């Protein structure tokens, strides 16, 4: 009955996310959509691994930030029995080695002795890092190259500094990410396919969500948009809008898409 | 009643305790033992008893173990060997609870280094023992203020120890221990930083306490005059051992060895010796029975110019000089009685020399020393000077 439904809607939905631009955008949009549907939504930004742990332990209800198959491959492997995969919500994400446009390389195989033979990476243990390590083994020209681990923040700073000085730099990149908007970057071709094809961003829910709030579960399951949509929101945020406002604007402009999810 | 009994107590500081104790037994000196073992003998084989209401004074060279001995009594230091009984209970075998009870109610201590709490006011410091015992706030304030008043420090009660002079701090330590009103007070050089006036007041207060409240006091001092003034008995220590225990007079008159002798050398004898110590055996006649001839004969025999007139019941009647006797003989008196000069100063046998002096000095005639209403001896100027001049008064003692 309808009373059941409203009671359901009173329930709090807690969305976990990780403080990446992409996830801020998507989480805010879906959160806003759920709110518009009458749910009490709380978004909590967490560390990458904590986000997975939270959903797996039913401490958070869902997240729309599972980068697969690469970036969060290990986490999925660990938690696959404790979370519910609601399928991808965005296609066409990508990971790979990236360099500034001004560098004269286009493929991983072109790398010889640029950038002091160092690839500037992010947090050790991230999926992209394992992929890069695999590449270091697979490509003979990277035999004596090193992967420096750091963090996403440190990597972007190093990138900014290098670009400012027009120095060579090879980074572990992924997109969507604001660095591709801020700087002229290009992915290096990956003939051996170590970085896989496209990355996809999946939605995951806790095992309890379906029981607790089938309504919200359904919406989350249907949530699905494009890289361009996401970039619109991200651009808004980068231009100074609050994520909430950017999400609202996007929803206003894309009523039809949202309607699909809440059908 | 025996209040404190100490039996063969020893304390060795440092590591090789057993070895050090053996060495003491072999008669090695403290500094030899220190060199050989690195251990310091604090107290060795001390035994004594203190009666209720007694002031027991401990003296001795610096470093001879006085403080150690006293701290053993309330077990601030664990003895290496021996037993200590307070009110008959063995302190060294007490558990924490019992020991606490003894410290609260029976034994309080004044520390050589004062041991005041720097973060508390003088008043709070003084209240400490009472507070520990759970005395209600109001009552302990009254008691503490009373103790401070006696110590002349009531005005300073809200100051902190650092704001007081050394002697004032010492008096706070004193007030703290006395406010607590325990049966036994251990006083480790408790008056050492006091000026003579306040010191004397404090001594008087102590004696009063002892007399009125029957408190037992163990008192360490370096001032022999003080020891003699307030102490019922005195123990003298050397290198951790107790060399002699006795009354002031015992020690002055029969020092156990040269150490004790040198220790008491500098004493102000007029504050120690009593009339009894310096009187001479009187030459007496019975004026009711003897005539002038007998008197003159006795004077000749004893080579004195004066005899005392004493009744059959050995009551003092007066004195007779050679002149008197001659006059009497001239007048043809059969008995001396009419010639006896009846005005004669007397002093009790235990009067201190310092109080005897003005009497002798004012008196044109010899002074009689009385004991239990009977004549005990006579004081003659020459003898007084002799006694004061003696290196030790052994010779002057009347035996």
């Amino acid at each position: 009955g309808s009373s059941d439904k409203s009671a359901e809607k009173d329930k709090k939905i807690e969305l976990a996310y990780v403080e990446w631009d992409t996830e801020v955008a998507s989480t805010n949009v879906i959160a806003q959509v759920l709110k518009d549907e009458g749910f009490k939504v709380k978004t909590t930004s967490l560390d990458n691994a904590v986000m997975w742990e939270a959903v797996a332990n039913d401490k958070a209800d869902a997240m729309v930030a599972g980068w697969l198959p690469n970036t969060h491959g290990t986490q999925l492997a660990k938690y696959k029995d404790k979370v519910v995969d609601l399928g991808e919500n965005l296609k066409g994400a990508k990971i790979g080695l990236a360099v500034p446009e001004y560098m004269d390389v286009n493929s991983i195989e072109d790398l010889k002795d640029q950038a002091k033979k160092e690839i500037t990476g992010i947090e050790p243990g991230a999926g992209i890092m394992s992929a890069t390590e695999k590449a270091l083994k697979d490509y003979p020209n990277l035999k004596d190259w090193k992967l420096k681990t750091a963090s996403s923040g440190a990597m972007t700073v190093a990138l900014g500094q290098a670009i400012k000085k027009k120095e060579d730099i090879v980074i572990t990149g992924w997109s969507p990410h604001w660095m591709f908007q801020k700087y002229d970057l290009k992915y290096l071709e990956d003939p051996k396919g170590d970085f896989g094809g496209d990355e996809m961003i999946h939605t995951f829910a806790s095992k309890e969500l379906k029981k607790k709030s089938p309504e919200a579960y359904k919406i989350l399951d249907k949530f699905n948009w494009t890289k361009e949509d996401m970039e619109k929101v991200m651009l808004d945020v980068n231009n100074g809008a609050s994520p909430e406002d950017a999400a609202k604007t996007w929803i206003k402009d894309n009523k039809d898409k949202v309607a699909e999810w809440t059908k | 009643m025996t209040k404190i009994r100490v039996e063969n107590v020893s304390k060795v500081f440092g590591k090789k305790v057993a070895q050090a104790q053996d060495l003491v037994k072999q008669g090695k000196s403290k500094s030899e033992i220190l060199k050989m073992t690195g251990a310091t003998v604090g107290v060795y084989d001390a035994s004594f008893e203190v009666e209720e209401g007694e002031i027991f004074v401990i003296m001795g060279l610096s470093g001879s173990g006085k403080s150690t001995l006293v701290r053993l009594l309330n077990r601030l230091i664990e003895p290496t060997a021996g037993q200590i009984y307070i009110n008959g209970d063995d302190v060294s075998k007490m558990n924490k609870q019992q020991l606490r009870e003894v410290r609260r109610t029976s034994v309080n201590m004044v520390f050589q280094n004062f041991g005041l709490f720097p973060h508390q006011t003088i008043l709070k410091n003084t209240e400490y023992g009472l507070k520990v015992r759970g005395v209600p706030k109001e009552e302990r304030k009254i008691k503490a203020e009373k103790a401070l008043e006696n110590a002349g420090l009531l005005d300073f009660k809200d100051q902190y120890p650092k704001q007081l002079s050394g002697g004032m701090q010492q008096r706070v330590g004193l007030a703290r221990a006395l406010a607590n009103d325990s049966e036994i007070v251990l006083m480790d050089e408790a008056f050492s930083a006091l000026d003579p006036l306040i010191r004397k007041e404090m001594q008087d207060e102590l004696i009063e306490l002892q007399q009125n409240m029957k408190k037992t006091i163990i008192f360490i001092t370096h001032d022999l005059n003080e020891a003699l003034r307030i102490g019922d008995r005195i123990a003298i220590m050397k290198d951790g051992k107790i060399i002699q225990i006795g009354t002031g007079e015992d020690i002055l008159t029969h020092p156990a060895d040269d150490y004790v002798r040198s220790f008491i050398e500098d004493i102000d004898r007029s504050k120690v010796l009593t009339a009894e110590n310096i009187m001479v055996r009187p030459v007496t006649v019975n004026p009711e029975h003897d005539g002038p001839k007998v008197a003159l004969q006795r004077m000749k025999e004893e080579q004195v110019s004066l005899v005392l007139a004493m009744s059959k019941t050995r009551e003092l009647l007066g004195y007779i000089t050679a002149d008197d006797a001659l006059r009497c003989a001239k007048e043809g008196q059969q008995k001396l009685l009419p010639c006896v000069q009846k005005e004669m100063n007397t002093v009790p046998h235990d009067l201190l020399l310092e109080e005897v002096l003005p009497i002798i000095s004012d008196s044109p005639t010899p002074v009689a020393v009385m004991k239990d209403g009977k004549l005990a001896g006579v004081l003659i100027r020459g003898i007084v000077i002799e006694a004061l001049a003696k290196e030790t008064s052994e010779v002057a003692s009347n035996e």
Partner: protein
Amino acid sequence: MNNFLDDIPQIPLAQWTNDAMDYVTDHFQGFFDQIQETTESLMVSVTDGLLFIPAIVMIILIAVLAFFATKKKFGLAIFSVLGLLFIYNQGLWEDLMNTVTLVLFASIISVVIGVPVGILMSKSKTIESIMKPILDFMQTMPGFVYLIPAVAFFGIGLVPGVFASIIFSIPPTIRFTNLGIKQVPKELIEASESFGSTGSQKLFNVELPLAKSTIMAGINQTVMLALSMVVIASMIGADGLGKKVLTAVQRADVGPGFVAGLGLVIFAIIIDRLTQSFNNKKG
């Protein structure tokens, strides 16, 4: 040369740890949930209470408190007003209140547990030798490691944040309580004992007052470390200034991160000066 060392098979401690964690979460979940819920609701209501008071009123209250706590000097009061106005001006007021709740909870619990533990350590060699490695453990085992168990036990949000903060920030209180009490001159302990003080009378009348400045310095460190944990706490969902920092850092945007960090610093300075003046007052 190292060969024979290499022959020892690797101890599967990592696996054991994971298993143990699973076991604990599986079997004690109810218990942890209980704690989590009560603490969380308490903390939320504190934050709500703080936020209910209008910022301007709060600022004035703190300034007045600062004025009287510092014996009617203006320095701290003025600093508090300017600093808090700055935080408000930067739109960080609500974050600050969240952080205040987190830090207060962590610090108060740390002190309430830490001081007694420090006292026990100072009294018993055994406890001391057991506690010391534990303290080393708490301070050096990286917070990141227990973030995940913390989430498993306490969920996400303020409570695991407080838990992680306490683990990291309690050791200075314990260590300096222990040190402070040990530094109390032996002769004063003796004086106290000579009057038959019980252990607790000695403690409250002599040891703690005399150790106060050292203990307070330890507590100050605890507060500082609790503050330094807010960013890590924000990784498990504790709102507040830490989250602002994290957001900025993810974007490699020093400016906002610095501003949020400055909010923490201002809070730290006010807390530091206030506790210090209370400390002196009773001295």
